[in-house]
């Protein structure tokens, strides 16, 4: 008997809930229908608009029928430090045929990011694939991989990958375990082994710079003791619609910066279609076999503008004191 009562009550509740749900859905549907009907009947302004459908057809509709759709979040419109610039995918192309180790990129990077460690973020390697092949200069910076090994191993999400392709570091969160440095095959990361000595360089920038708070999108401003630093692709320059320092200061136009969605890269003077440039000049990426999917492409050192010469190979010349001048 008790069981039966319980059953019937459950059934009643079940029915009630279902009915309520149907009413609610129906109500919403009716209001929707009503609003769309009224929109059609009331303001047929006669002002026509041409729109493209998702399958590429052009259609003409009355402008009154076009309603702006609100997105649940505004990541597609607003810059957010962890999400990046909306609808962008930054890439770099480094033309090895043009590099003659002028070191201007290293110097400008060091001074722009107040780099005080003895290890620059941007390095120019003296490379030689084998005994028989020619030497060439290879600048490297953070490869901003699409499958970043460093991000995978970070225990606290201090280093992260943004939608616009950048891999950045939150120096206020980093615990200094250096696992990311061990994981990075490109040796792109450096550590602040001691309190960074940036006061002189920052004081020159004025009082405001001295109190600048550490932020992931301006690496090294300031650096934080016991945390990891690396090339950040200069989001602070992108914000001002300028090119990263290494790109703009290179006298030989080695670096091309751009957007993969726009399919274009520029070194400030020349602009190329990215896909065509990579195809024509047989672009490649470093250590492709590791599956890291870097955002930095290299053009092979063929038809070089200059012969390979031994440049600055003594690190003293690259000391931070000398680097920034």
């Amino acid at each position, binding site marked *: 008997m008790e069981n039966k009562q319980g059953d019937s009550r459950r059934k009643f509740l079940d029915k009630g809930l279902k009915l309520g749900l149907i009413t609610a859905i129906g109500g919403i549907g009716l209001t929707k229908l009503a609003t769309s009907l009224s929109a059609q009947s009331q303001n047929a302004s006669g002002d026509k608009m041409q729109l493209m459908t998702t399958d590429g057809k052009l259609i003409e509709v009355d402008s009154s029928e076009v309603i702006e759709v609100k997105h649940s979040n505004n990541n597609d419109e607003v810059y957010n430090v962890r999400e990046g610039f909306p609808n962008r995918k930054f890439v770099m192309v480094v033309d090895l045929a043009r590099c003659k180790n002028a070191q201007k990129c290293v110097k400008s990077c060091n001074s722009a990011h107040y780099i005080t460690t003895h290890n620059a973020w941007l390095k120019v390697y003296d490379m030689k694939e084998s005994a028989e092949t020619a030497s060439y200069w290879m600048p490297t910076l953070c490869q901003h991989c699409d499958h970043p090994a460093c991000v995978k*191993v970070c225990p606290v999400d201090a280093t992260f990958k943004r939608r616009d392709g950048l891999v950045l570091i939150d120096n206020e969160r980093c615990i200094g375990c250096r696992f990311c440095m061990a994981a990075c095959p490109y040796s792109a990361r450096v550590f602040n082994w001691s309190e960074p000595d940036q006061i002189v360089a920052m004081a020159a920038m004025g009082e405001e710079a001295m109190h600048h708070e550490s932020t992931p999108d301006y690496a090294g401003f300031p650096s934080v003791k016991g945390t990891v630093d690396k090339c950040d692709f200069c989001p602070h320059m992108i914000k001002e619609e300028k090119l990263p320092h290494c790109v703009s200061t290179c006298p030989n136009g080695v670096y091309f910066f751009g957007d993969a969605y726009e399919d274009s890269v520029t070194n400030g003077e020349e602009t190329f279609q990215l896909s065509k440039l990579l195809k024509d000049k047989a672009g490649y990426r470093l250590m492709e076999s590791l599956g890291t999917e870097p955002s930095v492409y290299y053009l092979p050192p063929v038809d070089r503008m200059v012969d390979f010469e031994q440049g600055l190979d003594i690190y003293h010349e690259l000391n931070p004191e000398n680097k920034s001048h």
Partner: protein
Amino acid sequence: MQKYDQLVKDLAPKKFGIKGTIWITFLIIVILAALYAYYQQLTKGLIVTDMRDYALWGVYISNFVFFVAVSLVGSLISAVLTISKQKWSIPLTRIAEIVAIASIVMAGLTIIIDMGRPDRLWHIFVYGRAQSPIVWDVLVISTYLFISALLIYYPLLPDFAILKKYYKDAGSKEGKWYGKLSLNWTGTPKQKHILHKSIRTLAVLIIPVAFAVHTVTSWLFSTTYRPGWDSTNFGPYFVAGAFVAGTAAVIMITYILRKTHKLEEYLPDEIFDKLGKLLVLLCLIYIYFNINEYLIPAYKNTSEEKEHLYSLFFGNYAILFWSVIFISFIFPVIVLIFPKGRKPLPMFIIGFIVLVGSWWKRYIIVTPTLLHPFLPIQDVDKSWHQYFPTIVEWTITFGTLASALLIITILVRYLPIVPIQETAEENNLIETDKKSE
């Protein structure tokens, strides 16, 4: 009755003598020196170490791996051997668990010493990400510590009850504490049943956790691309090496305690004989994994591996590498094959050689790989091409070793080194005791 009283008297914890006081003072001095060194490191940063952007991990990490390795012996002796009903290892279970607890605690502390921002340790708990092997390591190490603590505590319950009575009879205050710790253990069949069941459950549980602890520790290396670490062999290779290191540590500590506490009767020569045979087996397994780990990459000799292996076989690390392999792992096997080699004193010496070799073994797993990155090391100070720990690093490292020994010493001071209850049961002393009452 008399026999039982004698047993309790023999096995009850003993106060420190003069030697013990000197030993403790020595350990505390070393630890204080390490604390001072660590203070230097905290204020100046990790610049006081010889680690730099290439040799980004050093002696702290290898020391951490060493501690994790040694801690595995707890599970080997008190779980694997107990479950497989190896009666000879019963007197060793407590020592093995004490060594395990001391080293896993120190492993946890050592990894904090390596952090650039120890003040942000809490970030791991707040922002922890499941895909990072470090988070797995934190999880398994704390689980292992917890189960180990239970596994040492449960078998102590009857012993605490025995000690309570013993000290009460002797009119000592210590009895009160042991009474509280014994959780009203009276030894009823029901209590015994629950206890045995719990211990057995823990003993089974701790085996996979122990394997996980050291396997995850090996993954800190093998999840990277670097030559020398990029190996599918790393998990079992580390676990095999861990059993070698831990057994060597237990051999040494058993030998010392047997001398200082005059426990020859309870820790007979036969135990060393058995431990010697066990160590031979473990060393052989470890040598087998070493062959896989080094000779197969050397056979293929890819350009990345070549540079790394050259530095181990013929280069900067050759003397260390071959000494560790031959003196610490192959030589002990040869000595321990002979029964004379398995006598207590030779065993102690062999244990020492194996343990020191095991420490250096971890050092040459961590350091040389980092000095052979994919891109060449260029445009940096010459000293960055090398790594050797600074005085600060050595002081802190010795401090962690001294801390582990201090934990062991303190536990040995207050806990019965050889389980009293189990030994009495083994010798059928409990029954006679009850009858005479």
